[in-house]
């Protein structure tokens, strides 16, 4: 294999890794702040993919523009899910809370999958925009425009999120609730409300990720678990400390998968991440999902 092919593989690994990063940031936000493991996160992405698919196929709205629809839609879905389901888990603490959140969101992912199969059929959907086939070629390396635009949008959104969490009073309140919910409550912060906002933000991120997935890759009703596992792997690798740390770990996973699929064949791509996941999980069972360091 020549150098160019390797580089090309790595570039595609980088692109897909950026999406792993976004999926993981949504998961880790909810886990870090609410101590809830939302395994329905992949299904939320799936839902967002269908939102983009239908506004494209029914109204001809450009898939990148449709993000402006899928993000608010998923934000509202997040608000709704918190009201209906997750709010009841907030009453629990510690291990019981994490475990119950896992089970409940497992049930939720089942419902969302079944509904998607019923209403959207099990066929794979993808969006072919007029410019989908075009790409930039740099020194023999192909950079499809869709992927470049995706990457650009991702950078924009996570920078915005970083700014929001670090600089605004609302963001600081979310971080305070993450660090010590009782102390935040004593400072006058309505924890329930900020938990709700956090879940909605996470769902909005899955909205972004899902729309980008259907542009670049394709969606089926059962695709959720694939993205969920990628997200979990990244969260386990990076912890819940920083947005950019999680994002970098996403890229890392994308690159490792790309390298492994060139070395050991395409099928190893699914396995290598899971092996990393199990190794990290077993090597640091306590520090898992903890702060960095």
């Amino acid at each position, binding site marked *: 294999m020549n150098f160019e092919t390797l580089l090309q593989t790595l570039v595609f690994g980088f692109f897909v890794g950026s999406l792993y990063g976004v999926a993981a940031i949504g998961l880790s936000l909810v886990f870090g702040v609410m101590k809830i493991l939302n395994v329905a996160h992949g299904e939320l992405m799936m839902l967002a993919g269908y939102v983009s698919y239908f506004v494209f196929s029914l109204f001809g709205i450009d898939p990148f523009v449709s993000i402006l629809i899928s993000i608010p839609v998923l934000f509202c879905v997040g608000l709704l899910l918190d009201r209906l389901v997750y709010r009841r888990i907030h009453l629990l603490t510690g291990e019981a809370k994490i475990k119950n959140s896992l089970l409940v969101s497992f049930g939720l992912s089942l419902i969302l999958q079944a509904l998607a199969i019923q209403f959207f059929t099990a066929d794979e959907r993808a969006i072919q925009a007029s410019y989908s086939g075009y790409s930039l070629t740099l020194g023999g390396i192909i950079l499809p425009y869709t992927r470049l635009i995706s990457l650009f949008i991702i950078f924009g959104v996570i920078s915005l999120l970083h700014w929001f969490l670090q600089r605004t009073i609302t963001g600081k309140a979310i971080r305070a609730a993450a660090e010590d919910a009782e102390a935040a*409550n*004593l400072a*006058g912060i309505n924890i329930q409300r900020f938990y709700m906002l956090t879940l909605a933000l996470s769902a909005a991120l899955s909205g972004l990720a899902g729309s980008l997935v259907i542009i670049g890759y394709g969606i089926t009703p059962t695709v959720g678990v694939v993205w969920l596992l990628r997200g979990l792997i990244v969260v386990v690798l990076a912890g819940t400390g920083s947005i950019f740390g999680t994002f970098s770990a996403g890229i890392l996973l994308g690159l490792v998968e790309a390298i492994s699929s060139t070395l050991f064949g395409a099928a190893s791509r699914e396995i290598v991440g899971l092996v990393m996941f199990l190794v990290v999980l077993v090597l640091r069972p306590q520090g898992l999902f903890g702060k960095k360091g």
Partner: protein
Amino acid sequence: MLEVKNLGVAYGDVRAVWDISFHVNVGEIVVLIGPNGAGKTSTLRSIAGLQPIVAGQVDYLNKPIHQPKLFTHAHELVSQGIVLVHEGRRLFGSMSVSENLELGAFSPQARKVKNRTLTQVFEMFPRLAERKDQRANTMSGGEQQMLAIGRAMMGLPKLLILDEPSLGLAPLVVKLIFDVIRELNQQGMTILLVEQNAKRALALASRAYVIEQGRIAGTGTGAALLNDPNVQHSYLGGVL
């Protein structure tokens, strides 16, 4: 201002507070003393809206805020003027001093006058002004306690509740903290204080209550309790 009537608190099946009644008048410093595990912290947590109560009633400004079927959350009480400085300080450790103070003024009315309150806090604790960009968990215990009180001040309390503010601090810092409490009281803030350092606390108190095994075991003015032989024996290290 605050009236606690036959309060009962439980964690699951474990009862922490059996029957506690006391009151705090406007402008007073009321002190609760008692051994570890007597239910002092549970009492304060319940009043501040962190822990639902199972019996009795708590009134604030002549209105019930807690009953077994009525629970007012801490953030609502903060906007009504009840602020608790929790045992162990409970700062946002990874955030800066300024951020901690900013979050203390989260309620709408406190946010409006944030800058003015901040000046007052920095006047009272010049150390915090010097360290305003430092991460809270890298500061000394004394500085952290100043920040905890400063953060509470940012919420514009009418009733400031302090749980063990002097715990684990050096004697000089303890003196500083008690001076601050006295000054805040002189500025018109009503104080409810739980302290291990019973001698200092009683010296400061308008009135005090002794709590044992989840019940009130005695009450009187600070001076009276200081001279009570039983109190001396149990909480003041025997001989003065």
